């Protein structure tokens, strides 16, 4: 660069001046740009301006706008989840109710069956007892009549035997034997 300024310099006489002046200028321009403090002011002014506008737009308009949508979505999902939760608990409750009703019905059925059985058992027992009593009475009466008949029959046996013995004796020896003799003879034999 200094080379160029040298060749473009006016003349050999002012060589020193011409070479130093552009050289100084070139040096100023080729200062490492980020450290050139002359450019700080315009940079900072525009930074302040743009960043302030950006911040205001962000905090007042853009971020609330995005946040709103996200919040709304989150709420919606939460609401749906809550509804699902509620429906599930409703279902659980309904199932529990049904199961309780079912268990109650089963218990009821059991108790009804038991009661009926007990009632029937009682009735059966009652009838049986009545029948047993009847039978016992009949048996007793029958036994009594058998006893009487037998006693009567036994009483008749002696008489018949005496008669038969008298008749037999008469036929055999043609003798009348008194009934009392025969009776005593028979009773002595039998005893």
């Amino acid at each position: 660069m200094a080379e160029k300024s040298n060749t473009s310099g006016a003349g050999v006489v002012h060589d020193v001046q011409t070479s130093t002046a552009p050289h100084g200028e070139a040096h100023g321009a080729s200062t490492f740009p980020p450290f050139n403090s002359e450019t700080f002011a315009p940079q900072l002014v525009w930074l302040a301006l743009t960043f302030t506008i950006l911040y205001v737009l962000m905090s007042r308009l853009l971020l609330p706008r995005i946040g709103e949508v996200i919040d709304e979505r989150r709420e919606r999902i939460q609401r749906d989840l809550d509804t699902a939760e509620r429906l599930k608990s409703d279902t659980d409750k309904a199932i529990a109710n049904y199961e309780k009703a079912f268990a109650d019905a089963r218990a009821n059925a059991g108790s009804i069956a038991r009661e009926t059985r007990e009632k029937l058992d009682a009735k059966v027992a009652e009838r049986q007892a009545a029948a047993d009593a009847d039978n016992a009475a009949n048996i007793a009466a029958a036994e009594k009549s058998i006893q009487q008949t037998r006693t009567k029959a036994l009483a008749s046996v002696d008489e018949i035997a005496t008669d038969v013995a008298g008749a037999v004796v008469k036929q055999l020896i043609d003798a009348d034997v008194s009934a009392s003799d025969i009776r005593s003879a028979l009773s002595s034999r039998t005893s």
Partner: protein
Amino acid sequence: MAAEGHGHSPIEQFEIKELLPINIFGVDASLTNSGAYMIVALSLIFGFLYFSTGGRSLVPTRMQSISELLYEFVANTVRENVGNQGMQFFPLVFSLFIFVLVLNLLGMIPIPGITFTVTSHIAITGALAIMVISIVIFYGLYKHGLGFFKIFVPSGVPLALYPLLIPIEIISFISRPISLSVRLFANMLAGHIALKIFAGFIGVLLGAGAWAILAPLPLALTVALTALEVLVAVLQAYVFAVLTCIYLSDAVHGSH
């Protein structure tokens, strides 16, 4: 020849060029390429975030998804580093992040003679860093009064070590704006210089007869470096936002 040499200078791309001379009360407020790039960045950010969220649909469109992703990403960064009380600083951190990010990325778009990276200037990064630290100090004093200075007193340390540790803490606090600004500035600057140098090699080799056969080497390197620089551009914007959050955390929570 000199003009050609000038064109190959790797620092020429950082030159501030005046586009429109403006002078307000003796302050040089000229619109420069730096200012123009900031206006472009502002317009792009506004345009994208505004129109992508125009529908405000419950099921987001692709563009709306990007906006929401950025929002959630920065919001989570703030929440993780500062906590829920820090959400009042969310617009600030988001503005810083998106501003630095877009300016870094705009600098990666090559437009001959125009391309300029605003964040490769210490004045810009320094101003942003000083703004952040000023907010930390003012908010800290507003919230905790003079108790804010307890952040210089490490807790759970024997009293005897205080004379040693307090100056260290103060120096580390003062160095924060410096590291914050220099990190971004140096990353942008070095990356662009490296890119320019390697890209320059391509031209030099192509013009050097048989050596032109080697030209693809710096080309490949330039491609790789470009990818790296895009990564750095995004990463540095994120780092700037995260460090801002960490510093704000001191102001919000007081002593650590």
